[in-house]
């Protein structure tokens, strides 16, 4: 984001609008799909369906980030949340082999706490959004976008980046050692 303070560069058709809230209309369908899938996730009683709806919600969020011209956030959202974390969820559901749906919960303390936490989160996001669009605020954004990120990864953070490969190797070997088939019967 070079010059728009909210960090929204909206592409509608062939023309690019830069500004605060102009032309958000085209986002209406992805947002609706996102909210709808989250609602479906909460309301569905089948664990596998819950997880799949959550995948859909994460993918929608990723798509929204992409439409808002934040390609890295979009890719990370899809790869990390929809890809890695949800696969873990699905594996857990598969391993525990949950057949019958979860029992219907009563409105207890937990629901109350969840509502309060939701409100707190909403207030937090609202404050952050108001601060971000306040005049004179600096958008952190991605300074040079993906190219800058790549350059950092292969210069300043090369050592850390290479250690990550070591970490993945250790995890791979460890998983194989713990779960692999026993040698020679």
């Amino acid at each position, binding site marked *: 984001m070079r010059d728009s303070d909210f960090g929204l560069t909206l592409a509608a058709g062939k023309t690019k609008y830069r500004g605060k809230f102009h032309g958000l209309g085209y986002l209406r369908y992805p947002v609706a799909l996102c909210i709808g899938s989250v609602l479906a996730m909460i309301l569905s009683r089948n664990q596998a369906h819950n997880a799949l709806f959550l995948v859909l919600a994460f993918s929608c969020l990723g798509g929204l980030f992409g439409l808002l011209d934040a390609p890295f956030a979009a890719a990370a959202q899809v790869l990390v949340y929809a890809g890695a974390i949800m696969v873990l969820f699905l594996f857990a559901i598969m391993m525990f082999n949950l057949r019958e749906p979860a029992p219907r919960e009563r409105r207890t303390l937990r629901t109350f706490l969840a509502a309060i936490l939701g409100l707190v989160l909403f207030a937090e996001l609202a404050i952050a959004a108001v601060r971000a669009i306040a005049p004179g605020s600096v958008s952190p954004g991605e300074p040079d976008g993906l190219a800058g990120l790549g350059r950092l990864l292969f210069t300043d953070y*090369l050592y850390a980046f290479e250690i990550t490969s*070591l*970490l993945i190797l250790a995890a791979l*070997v460890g998983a194989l*050692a713990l779960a692999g088939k026993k040698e020679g019967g």
Partner: protein
Amino acid sequence: MGFPPPIPPSVLALAPLLALVAGALLVLLLEAFLKRKDGELPAFVAVFALLASAFFTVVSWNVGNSGVYLHGRLLVDNLALLVTGVLVLAGIAVILMSLKYAAHQDMNLGQLCGLLLLAVAGAMIMVSSSDGLVVFLGLEVLSVASYAMSGLKRQDRASSEAAAKYFLMGSFAGAFFVFGLALVFGTSGSLDLTAGLSAGASLSAFPAAGAVGLGLILTALFFKIAVAPFHMWAPDVYEGAPTPVTVFLTIVPKAAGLAVLLRVLLPLLSGETAAAAVFTPALSVAAVLTMFAGNLAALRQKSVKRMLAYSSIAHAGYLLVAIVAGDAPSLVFYLLVYLFMNGGAFAVLVAMSGRGFERASLGDFAGLGRRHPGLAASLSIFLLSLAGFPPTAGFLAKFYVFGAAVREGHILLAVAAVLASLIAVAYYLKIIVVMYMQDAEAAAAFDRDDPALFLVIFLGLLGVLQLGLWPGNALSLIRAAFNAF
């Protein structure tokens, strides 16, 4: 002077790590493609890689190759080189111990060696950096490899339980570290653990979020070292893991974590700063809790392996005293001595294990003094050293640490440490009494054909006695290393 290094300094700084990683890859390839699975070739390759790593460390030391490399991510100094030496020695000892043990307990030696090399590499990454991100990645490499290693005895439920427990708790500790690092980065704008913190040495200039972040990072490190409110996982994991892996877990993560703690806290604790006023009492309380929790729980144990597990928790408390005193030489000396005495004591446990089982209960040690006088005498010396009796190195190590605490004015802490050591004498002596004063119900035959293991025990004895009687060389080396620190 001597030979000029044929390799550029930045490559030399990385060379100990590169040797280990290359060795790990070679071991894993051998493991995958070798036809004969029960061979000891992977172990020899692994020991060779560790020796190569030690060689490059010594070369680095000799040419004085200290400095900052790779955009400040890699820091080589005397502390890093000394602790790297300890880590490599521990790795070699663990591999030599597990040659026969792996075959007896149906463990895959190749996997053990590969994971061990990766874990030592992770610990090495941790100690040779002051960058929070790199320290975290090293910690994770070390941890992931350790989780897998503690579950390598696949037929044994306790071993699998140890791996699962360690993995779950360790993941939480890792999350604490990342969250803390994010807070420190958010408030200071720097990933450098030492610079970001010493800049805000006065608490008023130290943002609350940054202090919370530092607290979370310390919590994660305390978990890895098994310091008292965060030590609950340790006894089960240490007991369930295969015995050579227990040796690894009681030495390498502790050494690496303490080195990082020293690096982070030394600038913070020196001087009459407000930060020191908060962290010194907190660390002292943690140290006292650790010493007493470990020693009091060890008193009640029936299994010698579990007793030694609790004893290693208590030793983490003694080591923490050195951090509170801010005395790097006594910390490194204690680590070195601890490597010899703790490794030696567990090596005797390895020697007592048979095909498919371990003898770790107190009753198994009855009459050992008559049947296997050599083993019993070695174990007695290691235990006396752990307890801190004078002719052994354990006494000197404790003496230097507690002396440093008194010198820095932490009299109460030193008194508590001495009291804790007195409690510890009770259970160490209990094992010796059982070995020499009680008769065994059934004489158990041991497999004595394990030269590598007896080499480890012999080297342990040599270390404990040599450092106890003539510590001059090692001490002057360590002191000289920290004069410029």
